[in-house]
């Protein structure tokens, strides 16, 4: 299992594309928003959490088809299906490696981009925490969407149509954690629910994804 994780990470880093692209996309979204809204820092700081979260969501969706499609095309996925590791574990590892290669970099750069959007240094903490807890859920849910569309040629748009509605609760609770944190209101409630969403997504959804993958590999 660790070997599989290492392989996926190495492929993501060395095969080019995936690793940096998500972060670059995230940066572009954050640069484009002030161009559209105007340079007023007060307004920007109000929408900053939403922009960061929606940007992270979109950056995540864009890289989702990488989770399975390459392995599906060259037959690796079929070998993994026959390997002693259960497919559920394979899915979990792939979702986890997707998080390390896209979610984690987004979390790391989010404080810098938060500054660009007019957040105070003391407020950055909550943005980072909410993204750190919330983005794994995005990868796990995304892996389900990716396994649904793995057999479909040019399934990119369909994938985003399927996955984005599933992201609604994570987005709401994640942005709520950060916004309440900024306003110095107690955000214990949404924080706990966000954690629950992530844990549940990682523990239950791989079963659904593996079920769907088996159908697609029939």
């Amino acid at each position, binding site marked *: 299992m660790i070997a599989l994780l290492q392989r996926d990470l190495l492929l993501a880093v060395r095969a080019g594309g995936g690793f940096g692209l998500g972060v670059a996309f995230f940066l572009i979204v954050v640069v484009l928003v002030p161009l559209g809204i105007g340079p007023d820092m007060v307004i920007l700081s109000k929408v900053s959490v939403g922009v960061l979260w929606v940007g992270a969501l979109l950056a995540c969706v864009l890289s989702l088809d990488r989770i399975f499609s390459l392995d599906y095309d060259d037959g690796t996925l079929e070998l993994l299906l026959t390997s002693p590791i259960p497919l559920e574990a394979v899915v979990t590892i792939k979702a986890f490696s997707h998080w390390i290669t896209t979610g984690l970099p987004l979390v790391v750069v989010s404080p810098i981009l938060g500054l660009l959007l007019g957040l105070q240094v003391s407020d950055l903490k909550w943005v980072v925490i909410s993204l750190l807890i919330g983005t794994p859920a995005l990868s796990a849910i995304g892996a389900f969407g990716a396994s*649904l569309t793995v057999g*479909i040629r040019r399934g990119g748009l369909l994938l985003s*149509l399927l996955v984005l*509605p599933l992201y609604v609760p994570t987005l709401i609770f994640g942005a709520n954690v950060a916004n309440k944190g900024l306003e110095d209101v107690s955000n214990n409630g949404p924080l706990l629910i966000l954690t629950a*969403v992530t844990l549940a997504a990682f523990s239950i959804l791989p079963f*659904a994804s593996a079920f769907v993958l088996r159908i697609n590999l029939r």
Partner: protein
Amino acid sequence: MSLWEYANPVKFLKLSDKVLPFFVGFSIIGLSIGLFWGFFFTPDDYRQGSTVKIIYLHVPSALMAINAWFMMLVASLIWLVRRHHVSALAAKAAAPVGVTMTMVALVTGALWGQPMWGTWWAWDPRLTSFLVLFLFYLGYIALWSAIDNPDTAADLTSMLCIVGSVFAILSRYAVNFWNQGLHQGASLSLDKEKNVADVFYQPLLFSIFGFVFLFLTLVLIGTRTEIRLRRTEALRLRKDSE
């Protein structure tokens, strides 16, 4: 004699042949009584004026939009557990009807909201969760149409429907949490003594009755069409292979 016998397409077609005229009749009767009574023979509300009459379209369509998804969920579960093709096809046939009902509920709601709340749209929990439901329907229909193999498509969409249901419910509670609403509470619920004033309530019941049978009629027709499509496809394939 069990209910599962009707999972056989031939028996299903026979039975639906028999009941379909009744369903059509019930929906015409319910809709015409409900809508005519509602539109022309009820008084204007003392605050809302004649806009209150939108209720005869808005409430039943919203009700059916949710129940259609629920029916798809049940049909998907039956397909996954018992592999009855009719069940999968019924779920497929229900989706376009459900999305239309959602659309009707959203549009009539906007038309009602404009004079009453002064706005076509508000990011109210009920409105937002309906919009999310609409997106779920679109994704479901898109997935059906994207996959060629009918069995694979049925399996994948069933799973999407199940996972989607969980997330739809979660979204419903999430949006409640996210914003306090402008929308009134439930118009109808079984555990309340008094719902809507009687003059409006009685035609509304007819209208709901009509909508339920309209939904059943459309789903039955859709399922029958899908079964026949499947048959022609099988015949064509057999002819090609000869």
